[in-house]
C-alpha cells in the first residue's frame, strides 16, 4: 500500500471502531475495499494476542523470539507496545505456539490489532 492509502485505511479503521461496526465495505469504480474486525479471523483452536493500544511493537523488549514455532506461556509478557511514552506490556492468556507473526518487530499496531496468532496447547 502507498503511504497515502495506509493513512486512509487507518482512518477508516478508527471510523469502524467508532461506529462499533463489525464490517465496512466500500465499492467504487474499479475497487472494492472491505474492512473486517480482527476477531472474525480467529481460527478455531487458535487464539489471537491483540495489542491493547496503538503504538510501536517490540517483542525483543519482552524477551521473546517472535517467530513461528516459538513458545508462549500463559501470563507471560509477549510484547511491549510503546504508546504516548508509556510501555504497555501485552500478556498472553493462553499457552501455546506462535503460528504467525501478524505485526513485525518495530512496526506500528492499532488498538485491538492482533499481534500474534497462537495455536493453543493444553497446559502441562
Amino acid at each position: 500500500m502507498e503511504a497515502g492509502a495506509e493513512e486512509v485505511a487507518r482512518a477508516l479503521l478508527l471510523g469502524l471502531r467508532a461506529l462499533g461496526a463489525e464490517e465496512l465495505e466500500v465499492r467504487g469504480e474499479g475497487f472494492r475495499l472491505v474492512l473486517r474486525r480482527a476477531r472474525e479471523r480467529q481460527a478455531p483452536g487458535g487464539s489471537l494476542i491483540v495489542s491493547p493500544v496503538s503504538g510501536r511493537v517490540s517483542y525483543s523488549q519482552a524477551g521473546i523470539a517472535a517467530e513461528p514455532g516459538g513458545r508462549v506461556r500463559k501470563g507471560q509478557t509477549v510484547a511491549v507496545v510503546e504508546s504516548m511514552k508509556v510501555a504497555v506490556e501485552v500478556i498472553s492468556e493462553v499457552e501455546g505456539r506462535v503460528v504467525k507473526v501478524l505485526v513485525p518487530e518495530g512496526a506500528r499496531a492499532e488498538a485491538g490489532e492482533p499481534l500474534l496468532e497462537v495455536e493453543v496447547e493444553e497446559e502441562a
Partner: protein
Amino acid sequence: MKRLFIPNRGDAALRVARAAREMGLEVVLGHAWGDRGPAARLATATITLGPENPASSYMDPARVVSAALATGCDALHPGYGFLAESPELAEACRWAGITFVGPAPEALELLGEKAATLRLARDAGLEILGTGEAARDPGEVLRALRRIGLPALIKAERGGGGRGMKPVRGWEEAEEAVRLAQAEARLATGSSSVYVERLLEGARHVELQFLRTASGEAALLGTRDCTLQRRFQKVLEEAPAEIPEGELELAAEGALRLLEEAGLVGLATVEFLLHGGRLFFLEVNPRLQVEHTVTEEVTGLDLVRAQLGAARGLGLEECLGLAGWAGGGGLGSRRPALLPERGAALEARVNAESAEAGFLPCAGWVTRLRLPGGPGVRVDEAIEAGSQVTPFYDPLLFKVVARGRDREEALGRLARALEETEVVGVETNLPLLREVLTHPDFRERRVSTSWLEEFAASRSQVGGRPHPGGPPERRGRAGADRPAPFPAPSLRSP
C-alpha cells in the same frame, strides 16, 4: 532578540508562542510531520524538523539548531519536555550564536546528573533520601539498598519525568528489581547507572519555583503541591502548597545555595517530598514546567517573559517587571526575595487515557471539543477539534486552570469548568478528574502520592469492570470500545 525558534509542540509550543507574540517577537515553529498544532497560528513561519518519531525530530539537537539557523532565528526557547534540559542543545545554540532561553550547558550537565545533584543538595544543607551515589554494578546497588533499607525506590541516574523508576518493597524481590530497573534505565536514558532513595509512604509532592538572574539575584516565586500523580507523573496540581513555615524557609535557603552552586540562570523548580512535616529534596528541574500555570495565576506573573528577560541578561527587578510584576515596596533584603501569592489556583491535565483501565493511553481523532471558559478559568491547549492523538507523544490534550480568592473557590471553579468540558472521539480522564475534585480526601488535603492510583483502582473495581472499555455511557465512542478481550495490561514508563 527578534525572532524566536520553538522546537516543540502542543501546549508547550503554544505557551511560549503566546508570550513571545505579546512581547512583539516573531515566532518560528519547528515541528514534526503533520504535527503543527495550535501554536502554528501565532508563527511567522513553520518548519518541519523530521518524522513523527521524536528521536528524529524534536529530540535531535543538530536538526533543531539547523532549522533555527535556516529560518534566521536569533533565540531559541525549548519549551518543556524533549530537549528542554539538554546540555547538547544549549551548547549547539552557543556555538551557533543563538540565545538559548534556559541555563548554560554546564549547569544543565550538572543538574542532569541526579546523584551528583543530590550530593550538591546535601552540601547545601538540604535533607536527601539516599546516599547520593550512583552505580552500574548490580552488587553495589544492592549494597546501597541494604544501607538505606526498604521500601526504596531505584531511579535512573539520567532519568526524570517518571522515567526509569522502580519501587522495591521486599528483599525477596530486590535482586530482580535492580535488574529490571537497570534494563529500564538503559532503555529510557541510554545508561544503566542508577541510584537508590528511601520510599516515603504517605508523602506529598511539593515544589519551589525560583527565578535566578545572571546578576546572581534570585526570587522564590511561590510553591506548588503536585501530589496527585499516576506512574510518577503529575495529573492535578495547585498553588500554593501547605508547608510548615520554618521548614519552607530552610528549604528555600538551601535550594538557593544549590542553584548558586550549579550556576543556574533562569527558571528552576526544586522538588521535595513533604513527610512528617519535613521536606526531603528530590531533584531540580532547570526549565519551565507543565504546571507553571498555577504559579502564574497566583502571582500574576508571566513566567515565560521572565525567562526571556533572564536569557537577555536582565537583572531580577527588570525580569520581574517584564513578567508583569507591579512592584510595591521593592524586593527587600530577604534572600531569596519572596513574592506574595494571592489566592489559590488548580490545574487539571486532561489526558487521552482510560483511568478505568489502569490509565491506558487512548489514541484516536478528537472529533468534537468543547473547552471551558468563564471567570477565573484558563485553558492551555495541546490539540484542536479534528486533531489526531497519536502514540508518538504524551497523552495531554489540554490543561484547565482555575483560580479563586481561596482554595475553596478555585476548587469550585475547576469543578464547574470540567463539567462544561466535552471531548468526543477519544477516551479521557475527565470522569476521574471530576470525581477527584468532589472527593472529601482531596478537598481536605488528605492525599499522598499514591492516592490517585489507589482511588482509580478502587473505582474501577466498584464498577465491576476490571478490563478496559470505560464507563457504560462512553462505550461505542471511538477508542472506547476495543475488540477481542485481552488481559489487563501492565504499564510502566519506558
